[in-house]
């Protein structure tokens, strides 16, 4: 077939195989890659290498907005900074008061449950990560963070901000990781209404930044303002982390009477910094790893090990 290239009738393509042959070759490569993308180890390794290659470009592309944020910070007036400082001090003392009460509650809980020793803290390890790039496609609500496998990030790790659950790690690269936000249409998070312990699943609503609860009957007791927390099922998030607040009643949507909308408590659109959490599996509140629901196929050795000692 390579003879085609040297055919006298085709003086334009005098080097290498003809475009038709090349197209066939590349199409076959593409299809093989697509087929093995979800299953094969090799393609995952290629993905991992590509993540390493794309990281510097993502940092470069994100740098103007980072520079702008830095400049804004650098040019803030003394008054503004002092006001912010006062605000944070007030918030700190408020939180201190709350934790004081919480320690008492924990003690009480231990006594009520008849436990001999207090439980280990639920969160074993946490680290901050910067968002370096945001996927703006309406159907892909994802962000890339600047921590990867070299920083101990594993697939399916919980990602939160100061207010609540933001998403989970979908794919890990060497120095970066892709986080799928709770608003991504591919994401589903098991939730529970705090008011009446009603359980459901919240799906991402896409670019409008809302969550949808489609699996509710139209006479379900759920009202605007209800807080949804993670229910602890699904194996990624522990129970009780705030997820979203209901903004529409079940009968609010004419076309889909059972559809309830909820707005995430995490500031999905404006966050620049996120927190990656690792849970202590010896705490009963830690999520029980549940591979079938897991997003990425390959379980990390550490995650597999923790599933064996989990007590849930």
């Amino acid at each position, binding site marked *: 077939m390579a003879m085609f290239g040297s055919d006298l009738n085709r003086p334009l393509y005098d080097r290498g195989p003809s475009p038709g042959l090349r197209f066939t070759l590349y199409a076959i490569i593409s*299809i093989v890659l697509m087929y093995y*993308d979800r299953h094969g180890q090799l393609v995952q390794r290629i993905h991992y290498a*590509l993540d390493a290659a794309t990281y510097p*470009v993502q940092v470069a592309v994100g740098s103007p907005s980072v520079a702008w944020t830095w400049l804004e910070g650098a040019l803030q007036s003394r008054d503004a900074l002092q006001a912010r400082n006062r605000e944070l001090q007030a918030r700190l003392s408020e939180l201190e008061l709350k934790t004081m009460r919480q320690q008492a509650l924990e003690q009480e809980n231990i006594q009520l449950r008849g436990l001999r020793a207090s439980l280990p803290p639920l969160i074993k390890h946490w680290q901050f990560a910067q968002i370096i790039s945001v996927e703006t496609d309406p159907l892909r609500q994802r962000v890339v963070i600047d921590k990867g496998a070299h920083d101990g990030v594993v697939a399916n790790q919980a990602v939160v901000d100061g207010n609540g659950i933001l998403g989970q790690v979908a794919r890990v690269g060497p120095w970066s990781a892709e986080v799928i936000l709770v608003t991504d249409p591919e994401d589903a998070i098991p939730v529970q209404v705090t008011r009446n312990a009603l359980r459901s699943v919240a799906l991402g609503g896409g670019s409008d930044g809302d969550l949808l609860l489609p699996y509710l009957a139209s006479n379900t007791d759920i009202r605007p303002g209800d807080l949804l927390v993670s229910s602890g099922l699904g194996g990624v998030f522990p129970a009780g982390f705030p997820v979203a607040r209901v903004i529409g009643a079940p009968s609010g949507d004419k076309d889909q009477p059972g559809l309830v909308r909820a707005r995430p408590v995490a500031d999905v659109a404006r966050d620049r910094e996120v927190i990656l959490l690792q849970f202590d599996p010896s705490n009963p509140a830690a999520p029980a790893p549940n591979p079938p629901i897991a997003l990425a196929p390959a379980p990390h050795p550490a995650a597999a090990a923790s599933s064996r000692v989990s007590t849930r």
Partner: protein
Amino acid sequence: MSDRHPRVSVVLTSLVALLLSLVPLPHWAAIGRPAFLVLAVLYWSMMLPRAGGMTLGFGAGLALDAFHGSVLGEHALALSFVTYLAIRLNLLVRAKPLFEQSLFVFAALMAYEFLLWVIDGWSGYPLSTPTRWVHTLTGALIWPLVVGILGRFHATR
């Protein structure tokens, strides 16, 4: 007519186009953002089919796959196909006035997006919005601009 010079500008302009399609934009602007890299690949495949060739289309598609985190090979296949079309029809389209070229670009972008749409459905990502087709229109509209800018990077024959 050195042989290496056009290659350098092909690669450089394609890189700039890749960056342009990655720069974060507010949501409303991102909907109408033309697929700059696809436009650049189309341009080079039509005007200098030997400088980039099929390898340019395939490589650019792989880069898009890597950056968009899509199924590896998805953009590569779609962009290879469009590149093949452009290379095959380059003599036909190149001589036409800009308006007719825009029509061809529109058709090529529709074919590109259609392939992506089909592969999305097959690969278990059946969600779609009508907004995904907007860029085919904006891409065809800025085609004269693409010709004007990229035309400066090579000797017109």
